[in-house]
Each structure stands twice: as structure tokens, then as C-alpha cells.
């Protein structure tokens, strides 16, 4: 229906562990219209030019978190980044920084998933309640305290932006800290102390050097840097309080 009148060059960093020693770029010429996303450009390549190109995607609307990649060196969701913003120059796409590449634009995200799993990302009730008792009451203000941190789509752009994670892949990093914070400040939850143990530990939030680039690249306004820094303060407080309080100082 829409006419493909313009052609853009898309340079893709290719890597196949079965045949390549190192990743190398390949350039494709892709016809495009102004409403086409970078993801649609890559899909065009797969459908028409090279069926072996591998990448993750699903929702096309910036909510499933699958399609993060480096676009001209900046971490973006490819489904909500548009080719028109790069044309007439060439656009360069690569796998997300700081993660091992499995193939082409696909990174290994197991480490990230392990971090999510490790912080007990579920309600451990302060006061257990039966279903017959109905919902917990939570005012809009109380909801507001954690809502932003619950909006993380696990796209890992913030990890690709984080210099500390680049240096130390064990660093718990922005999104997992935001999630930890999300549960800690939920009025229904009572397990902050347990979770804070993790933050005290070696790989906890002290690694952060407050660059703030994670929040800048976050497509969902989660502001993970804010969560990291709040927990740094909390963590420092707790660290000192643990000498004077038998319960570790966490409330």
C-alpha cells in the first residue's frame, strides 16, 4: 500500500559462533517509509535479503522488552526507534553492550534473569491475609511510591548503558535494584531486611558510581539510578546502624 521510495543502509553486526571467530559488520540496503521502525527494517532484511539474521522481538510496541539493541552506539528498543531519524546516513545496529553475544543481535540474558530471581521479587506479606478478607488497602499515594519501579520491562538497556556492569558482570545493576526497591517500598511487603542483605553484599549497590546513564536510556521512565541511589543511602544507613541495632537497622 505505502510506497517504498527511499533506501536506507543498515549495517548489522553479524556473528555466528559456528562459523565466525569474531563478529563482523554487514551492510544491507533497505527500502523504507517514514513510519518504519528499525525493527521493521531488520525484519525486512530477514524476510527478503538474508533469512539467517537472528534477533529477538515480539510485541512491536515497546512493552515486551525483547528488542533492545545498540543503534548507532546507543541502547534503544528497536521497535520504537525510527529509520527516518537516521536517514540519509547509514544506521548501525549491534547486540546490546556488555552481554555475551549468542548470535547476531541475540545476547545471553541468563545472568540478568539470575539476578532478578535472586532478589526475591515477590510479596512476602507483612500481614498475611486470606482471600476471603479481600484486597489489601493501598492508597494511590502508596501505590505511587513503587509504581514507577514496577514498570520495568526487563529490556536491559540500562545494563548496556552501565559502565560498572561493563567492568563487573556480577554487579546487580540498575533494573534488578529497581525491582528490589519496588518490593521493599510496597506497603504489602515485609521482607525489606532480607532483600537488603543482598544490597550489602559484594555485588550490591555500592558499585554504582552514579553515572546516571541507565536512567537516561530507560524507555519506561523507571529511573533505576534513583532506586540505586536510594538504596545506597539506605544501605549506608543500615551498614552503620547494624553496629547499634540487633535487627540490622532496617525497619
Amino acid at each position, binding site marked *: *500500500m*505505502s510506497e517504498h521510495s527511499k533506501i536506507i543502509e543498515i549495517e548489522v553486526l553479524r556473528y*555466528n*559462533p*559456528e*562459523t565466525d571467530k569474531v563478529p563482523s559488520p554487514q551492510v544491507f540496503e533497505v527500502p523504507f*517509509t517514514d*513510519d518504519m521502525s528499525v525493527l521493521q527494517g531488520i525484519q525486512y532484511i*530477514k*524476510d*527478503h535479503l*538474508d*533469512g*539467517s539474521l*537472528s*534477533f*529477538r522481538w*515480539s*510485541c*512491536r*510496541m*515497546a*512493552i*515486551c*522488552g*525483547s528488542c533492545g539493541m545498540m543503534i548507532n552506539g546507543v541502547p534503544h528498543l528497536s521497535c*520504537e526507534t525510527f529509520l527516518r531519524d537516521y536517514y540519509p546516513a547509514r544506521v548501525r545496529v549491534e547486540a546490546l553492550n556488555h552481554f555475551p553475544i*549468542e*548470535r*547476531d543481535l*541475540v545476547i*545471553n*540474558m541468563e545472568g540478568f*534473569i539470575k539476578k*532478578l*530471581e535472586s532478589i*526475591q*521479587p*515477590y*510479596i512476602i*506479606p507483612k500481614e498475611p*491475609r486470606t*482471600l476471603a478478607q*479481600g*484486597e*489489601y*488497602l*493501598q*492508597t*494511590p499515594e502508596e*501505590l505511587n511510591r513503587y*509504581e514507577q519501579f*514496577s*514498570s520495568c*520491562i*526487563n529490556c536491559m538497556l540500562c545494563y548496556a548503558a552501565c559502565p560498572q556492569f561493563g567492568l563487573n558482570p556480577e554487579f546487580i545493576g540498575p533494573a534488578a535494584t529497581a*525491582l528490589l526497591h519496588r518490593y521493599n517500598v*510496597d506497603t*504489602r*511487603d515485609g521482607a525489606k531486611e532480607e532483600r537488603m542483605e543482598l544490597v550489602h553484599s559484594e555485588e550490591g549497590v555500592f558499585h554504582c558510581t552514579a553515572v546516571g546513564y541507565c536512567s537516561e536510556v530507560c524507555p519506561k521512565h523507571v529511573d533505576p539510578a534513583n532506586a540505586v541511589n536510594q538504596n545506597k543511602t539506605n544501605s549506608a544507613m543500615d551498614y552503620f546502624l547494624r553496629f547499634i541495632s540487633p535487627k540490622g537497622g532496617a525497619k
Partner: protein
Amino acid sequence: METYKADVVIVGGGGAGLRAAIAVAEFDPTLRIALVSKVYPMRSHTVAAEGGSAGVKLPTDKFDYHFNDTVTGGDWLCEQDVVEYFVSQCPEELTQLEHWGCPWSRTPDGHVNVRAFGGMKIERTWFAADKTGFHMLHTLFQTSIKYPSIKRFDEHFCVDLVVADGRTQGVVTIEIASGELTLIEARSVVIATGGAGRVFRENTNGGVVTGDGMALAYRHGVPLRDMEFVQYHPTCMPGTGLLFTEACRGEGGFLVNKDGYRYLQDYGLGPAEPTPRNKAMELGPRDRLSQAFWYEQQKGRTIEGPHGSVVHLDLRHLGEAKLRERLPQIYELAEQFLGVDPAHAPIPVRPAVHYTMGGILVDGKCAAPLPGLFAAGECSSVGIHGANRLGSNSLSELCVFGKVAGVEAARHAKSVAPGNSANLLKQAQAVEQRVVGLVRKSGGSERIATLRREMAQTMEDGCGIYRLAESMQKTCDKLDELKLRFKNVHIEDKSSVWNTEWLLAIELEYQLDVAQAMAYSALNRRESRGAHQRLDGYEARDDINFLKHSQAHYVADGAPRIDYGPVKITKSQPGTRAYGAAGEQAERERNASHV
């Protein structure tokens, strides 16, 4: 090939699959659960559901009202006993999610808030801003981490069920990262793989929504029920089909044609009032709204855009503050993808395929006719949606029937003996030969993308909002042709690691089967009901001949065989399905005749 021994295997890590996994874990922590998903669970398409999840909440509401809305909305093609169970369980399940941390939007005093939705008499849609599916999915995923008995097989693609001695005994999967196959033995299998909207061209669905589980069950002789009923959502983005939630209208948005006229009043949905009245105008059901769009287009009253005709979804009068609070994602979608600021300009929208009402035939306990096989969620046809699903019933369905499927699968697993491992392995090896053969073979010439595009186009042409025997027949013929051409498919990629082209080929084969079931079921239903509307002499509902469920049976290398099953009617006799002022009149008459 490696073997993993589980008790229950769940295929699909979206809302229904996760809920089922948790249900098994809570039913008996000693049962070993394998949760297989072709994507990490939080990527599943539940994530894209926006508007909300239905459950009686206000003191003015009743289970009976939710029941009536659902059965009427489904044009009486619902299993009424199942609907009755469903509506009675919704509030408890949504409360359960609240206890698990779901950030439901709240009233000022801290209770869960509810909003209006299409075809619902009373506000009963629980919501988390306009990212309800996202929050439900992440809540379920994160909660599932609590249960050590749930072993996840993330990014494992299920290629077949293993059926032996007349019962389902496991699945065969491909690990996407390595290309290696695994046999997962289990005494119960739950399919929770979602819908099949991607068989159509313009759709709201994510790339993963390819009907895999439907095809798996179908090929093993389980009928697909009511597949002709495919829902067009009336307000989608032209071109991409991305969804603008019904909550836009629940919050008070208008639909207007090129003259700025609220055209729905011309289609039995009026009167047009400045604020939304439940079950009228913009809060009518989805099938009626999409049909009204089609007529406006015929009359030349739509607006022509680069991606076809559109009408306008006008949210301007709601004001920026309310839009940012209640519909933040919609706001961003309109800004980023269309360059439209919805507080200052109307959003161009058109209908797109959204939901498959039909699916794997299961009873009210989510059990398929094949022992050991269960299904829940969009891939299943448990019988609550009938010929047209009401918005916000599907998210509740995931929870209510995800749980039922989990509990029943757990019970079944405990009641039967393990199978003969050697025998199961032999079958799995045969599956391996077949799927690996697909990638190894050479000499094919058909591109996957070409076949997929032709399939999606012919489905749109023949099985759209309005249908004709001639075009449906053409679609059936085209699908037969595509199935033949698929045998000649060419896969360029020969590697084992992340060979997505191989997986796309397998998905395409699933899709062609499901598309056939849809098209042939549609052709055979010679009446109009809910989302299945004909213009070739079968414009009326025909309860005498077609108050029945269609059942498509798989026939290898041929057209599906279609037969029919009874519809369970308990307390709501089929009547006139009316909305707006006419609907209120009809309801008064019904009530009067009951006294």
C-alpha cells in the same frame, strides 16, 4: 537426545501457563513442573493487554449481570455452566493477584478501582493504568520464582506432543540457543500457548502469537472448536495494527467519522450522549463496532490514510492530565508511532484482528478429549466467549482457567502411572528426525516470508469482518495451495545456534493448519452470529441449524472435517442481542416476562 522427567509439563509461559504452574506447585509441592516457553515468560503476549480484567466488584453488581453480559455478548454460543463458574471465580482470582503484588489502580480510600468496558452493564474491569496485562504477567512471573518445584525451560520451542497408550505423556522441545532437542516426560500436559492472530495480515498481536499449541493438539486428533470466530478490535493503529485499548472508550473517548459525527448512533447503539453510558455507543461490544466501521467505509464516510481507511478516536475532551493518569501508554504510542498528541488531536484508528475466540476443545475442567491433555487461555475453547468475547474477560480467563488447568493436571498426574520411557524416547526420536529433516533438506525454493504473506492476505480477504461464500472458498483453496507449497520451503540457515528461520518454518506450518480450521469452519457456518457475519443470504442468526459449536478435525494432507457439538444452555434462552436504548428496552421486556 536428553530426557527430562517431570510430572506436569506446561507449554506456554504467559498468564495462563504461569497461573497453571503456580496452581500445580500449590496443589502439591512434590510434583515436578516443567514450564516450557519459546520466549522468556515476561515476553509473552499477555504483556500487551492493556485495558483490564473483569470481576464483579461494586455492591451494585452481581454475578448474574456478568453472566448475562458475557452470554449475550457471545451471541448465546457460550457454555453457560462454564460461564457461571467463571464469573463466580473472577473476583477471588483478581484478589489473589492483588495479594501477589499486582499494582491495581486504586480509589482514594485504597480499594481496587474498576472502570467501564464495552458490553458490560456495570463497571467491573479491574485495571493497572493501561498496562494491565503487563502488570499481571510480571506479577505472575515474579511470583512463580517463589516455587522451587517450577523448573523453567525458557526459550525452548515445543515441536510436538508425545502420545502413547492413548494418553499424553510428554513433549519434545528444541532449545533455541543450541538447537538441541529434549524429551520432557510428563503424565499431564497443559497447553497455554495463546492465540493465533498472526495468521491475519493486520493484527494487534505480537510475533509469538502463531497458534502453536492449537496445531499441536489438532494434529493429535483433538478438535478445534468455534475457530471461525475471530475478533476484530475496532480501534487499532493503521498499518501496524497496534492496539488502542477499549479503555480509551471506557474513559469517555468518542469514535467519529470524517464529518466529526459519532456514527455508532446509526447502528442501533445510540442515543449519543456526552458521557459514556454502559453498553451503548462507544461502549458497545467489539463485533458491533468493527461492523459499523465497515459500513461507514462502504458509505464513504471514513477518512483515507496511507494505510487504508480510518475513523477518529477522539480523546481530546478528557484532557491531558486524565489521559496521562489513566492511559499513559496510549498517550506515548500515539505520540511516538503516529506523531499525534491525543490531548490535542484525534487518533486515526481502524479495526484489526485481535483475538481468537475458538481453540482447543476442552470441558469446564480444561480437559481435552485426549487423556492427560489440558488447555487454558486463548489457545483453548472452554466455552466462555461464544461468538464474540467481551473486552476484559480474557485476562480473567487466564487466571480462573489457568488455575483450573493446573489443579486438574496435577490431579491427573497423581492418578496415572508413569509411561514406558524407552517407548516415549523412540517416539521423540522420530519427531527429531522430522524437524531436523526440515532444516537439513536442500533444493526447496519457497521463501517463508512469501508463504506467510500470502496466508495472511488470503485470511484477511476471506475471513474479514464480513464474509461471502465465494471469498471464503477462495481462501480455503489458497490455503490448500500454500500447504502444498510449504513442502517445497527453503531454509537458508543451516546452523544450530539461534536458527530462528527454522523455527519460523515450523510456526508457519502450525499457522497453516490453524488458518485452515478457521476458514473451513467459517465457510460451513451458514448464518451470522457475533464475529462471524455473512452477506450472501445468511445475514441472520439461525438458532435452529447453528446454535452449535463447530468442531474442526485435522485431516492429514486434506481439508479439515467439520462437525458440530451441542451448546450448553442453562438459564439464558437465546434472545435478541441489542445494545443502546434498544438493549435497555429489551432488558426491561425480559425482566417483565420473568415476573
